[in-house]
């Protein structure tokens, strides 16, 4: 195991976030705070409770997931895409480092950044609402699993993208709509029956539902199903990345 290589990739990527601190941390925290002001206070004051939870509090898990998913994707995608774009990836590919170690460095750092961001957003949320976490262990488990899975997904996008436009394509056109329609701001029980069924095909529903359960003990779908779905997504991402490395997709001719 080339620990030193994993360490330098991890450190390099974490320092990149530090250099772009506003973009990495401040920007998502500010936008999340704005969501709290607009949805939590302005609109939320007109909605008393959802599933017996005050609306301002109800949206905390969804808002956290919204930032977490987009940041995990962006961090990991950009982390591998940029050295590919500049050609500097030759150095990593010609070093005595295994595919797993490359993943550990890039995906590990992207997931760490998102995890830290998730904790910062929850801390920020605590300034607006009185936050209590019923199942802290499961909250952390969902947080970590989501960060890792979507960082892996971002890594796949970073390998797949052949230009900057494609890099933004999936986060903007797929992830953001899925998160908004995944019950971030509402319970899926509030939807008409037909749309409730449609929504169940949205994988983000399971993430938000499971994460919300860890806070309030209530969920749209069963916790076991949420956990199974996120583990399935993680497995699919691992299988996809393994195939990409094995075939040298966009990395090796």
């Amino acid at each position, binding site marked *: 195991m*080339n*620990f*030193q*290589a994993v*360490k*330098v*990739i991890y450190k*390099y990527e974490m320092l990149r976030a530090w*250099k772009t601190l506003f973009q990495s941390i401040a920007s998502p925290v500010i936008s999340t705070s704005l969501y709290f002001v607009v949805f939590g206070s302005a609109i939320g004051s007109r909605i008393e409770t959802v599933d017996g939870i005050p609306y301002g509090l109800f949206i905390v898990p969804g808002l956290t997931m919204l930032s977490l998913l987009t940041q995990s994707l962006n961090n990991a995608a950009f982390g591998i895409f940029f*050295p590919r774009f*500049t*050609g*500097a990836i*030759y*150095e*990593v*590919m*010609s*070093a*005595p*480092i*295994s595919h797993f170690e490359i993943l550990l460095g890039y995906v590990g750092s992207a997931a760490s950044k998102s995890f830290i961001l998730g904790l910062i957003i929850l801390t920020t949320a605590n300034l607006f609402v009185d936050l209590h976490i019923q199942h802290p262990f499961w909250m952390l488990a969902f947080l970590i699993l989501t960060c890792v899975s979507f960082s892996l997904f971002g890594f796949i996008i970073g390998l797949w993208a052949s230009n900057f436009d494609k890099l933004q394509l999936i986060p903007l056109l797929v992830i953001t709509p899925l998160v908004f329609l995944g019950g971030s701001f509402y319970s899926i029980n509030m939807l008409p029956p037909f749309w409730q069924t449609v929504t169940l095909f949205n994988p983000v529903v399971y993430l938000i539902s499971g994460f919300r359960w860890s806070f309030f003990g209530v969920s749209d779908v069963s916790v076991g199903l949420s956990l199974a779905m996120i583990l399935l997504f993680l497995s699919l991402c691992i299988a996809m990345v393994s195939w990409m490395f094995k075939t*040298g997709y966009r990395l*090796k*001719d």
Partner: protein
Amino acid sequence: MLMSFKLFKLLNKMNTIISIKNITKTYASGHEALKEINLEIKEGEILALLGPNGAGKTTLISIICGLVSPTGGTVKVNGFDIITDYRKTRALIGLVPQELTLPAFETVINTLNFSRGLFGKKPDKAFVEKMLTDLTLLDKKDTEIRMLSGGMKRRVLIAKALIHEPRILFLDEPTAGVDVELRKDMWNIVRRLRESGVTIILTTHYIEEAEEIADRVGVISDGVLLLVDEKQALMQKLGKKCLIIELREKISAIPASLLSYHLVLSENGSKVTYTYDTQRERTGITLLIKAMNKAGLEIKDLQTAQSSLEDIFVNLVSEKK
């Protein structure tokens, strides 16, 4: 006798640091970039791979470095297979790519520490500073790479390739697009590296570069290694000159008294060509002219021509085509 032969074979084997056997590469597009390349590279030598653009030079070194997967054949570095023992082989290799592929917003010192770490080496401030001093980059160590000149960036690439103390260095077109002064500077760096025991393989299409610094020269064209030879052997070919003698009167055949000079008669019989070795003590020109006079051939004009390494290279490539 048997023992000494075995010892000779063993020493010879030990000296080979890279062994390339039947390497082929066909890209997904169907382009056959390499066709059964066989090559042995000795430890401590400077090998120049000469060839036109698209000949397969970069593909070959990319395969050895792990950047391109071969379609067939094997490559061993220091006795280890580049695929099954990639950690051992890659640890021995440093690569300077042709393009200035550097992280623009990173400082010189940070990018060197990153490169060293990738190869599993712990930070070593003293070694890194020595490297920066050797490549006259010390005063630029905290400068962002985007602020450096093209020449400085190329030095950073060399420093990155050497920072993990490799035994083999690949330089892919190291002086492509650089000015004459920097080119000579690069040659001095390469010589110093060779003195420290590093094996150097460089690709180039500058003949003078190969002449100046290489011990051996390989000519590659259209994916085929046409020739690998000691530079001195090539220089001997280079040392051969031609004396073209224009005759006042055309002849139909070389007179019997001149056959020992191996003259070549032109098609129309107006010129004879004598090839001689400039490195020999006597060229034989005086004797030839005396013998021609004696044979009754009158000389109208004389001219000489010398074949360059470039001529040899062009001939080899065109013969192949």
